[in-house]
């Protein structure tokens, strides 16, 4: 399967804490993208990391990519209640993982 797989499937933290979500994939990729989706809403692109990059930052987001392990992580620092959503990784093969549901408690 080419599907990315996120873990954990669900994560519940307090506001201000950091949240780390992981994604694994099985095929070679050109890039990997992280998306956010609020319940019943559209997908919002967060960040794209290319296969030749190891780490990328965007605001409170930090993404790492380890192509040797075929894995990526998304770190959200200083989380806020508004970060509550599902987070998906998707590979350049247009396949999405199951997503991590993040709940940030105020």
């Amino acid at each position: 399967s080419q599907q990315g797989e996120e873990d954990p499937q669900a994560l519940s933290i307090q506001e201000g804490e950091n949240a780390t979500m992981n994604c694994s994939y099985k095929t070679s990729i050109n890039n990997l993208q992280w998306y956010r989706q609020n319940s019943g809403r559209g997908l919002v692109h967060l960040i794209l990391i290319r296969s030749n990059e190891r780490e990328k930052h965007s605001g409170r987001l930090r993404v790492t990519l380890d192509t040797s392990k075929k894995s990526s992580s998304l770190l959200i620092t200083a989380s806020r209640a508004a970060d509550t959503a599902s987070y998906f990784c998707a590979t350049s093969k247009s396949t999405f993982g199951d997503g991590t549901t993040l709940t940030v408690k105020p």
Partner: protein
Amino acid sequence: AAGVIQSPRHLIKEKRETATLKCYPIPRHDTVYWYQQGPGQDPQFLISFYEKMQSDKGSIPDRFSAQQFSDYHSELNMSSLELGDSALYFCASSPVVGNNEQFFGPGTRLTVL
């Protein structure tokens, strides 16, 4: 900035009816992708087009067909609708030049009764 436009935003159909979903990509984007997301499920890739030709095919049922037109908009045609077709259908577009970052539309919510 212009975004991906999908129409209609909501659609209610009965079993065995047909439905057509439309997607208008961001200007100068020539690649279009279609995804289906069932309730509580992750998005599933259906099909993609590049320069009006099918470029990749995922888990699209035989009852569905799609095409990309000369103005790069795309339509997803769904026939003999089943209850299980109820889902959010997303379209995304990307420019051929660049890193294939996909820009998603707001989705069409299809409900089959």
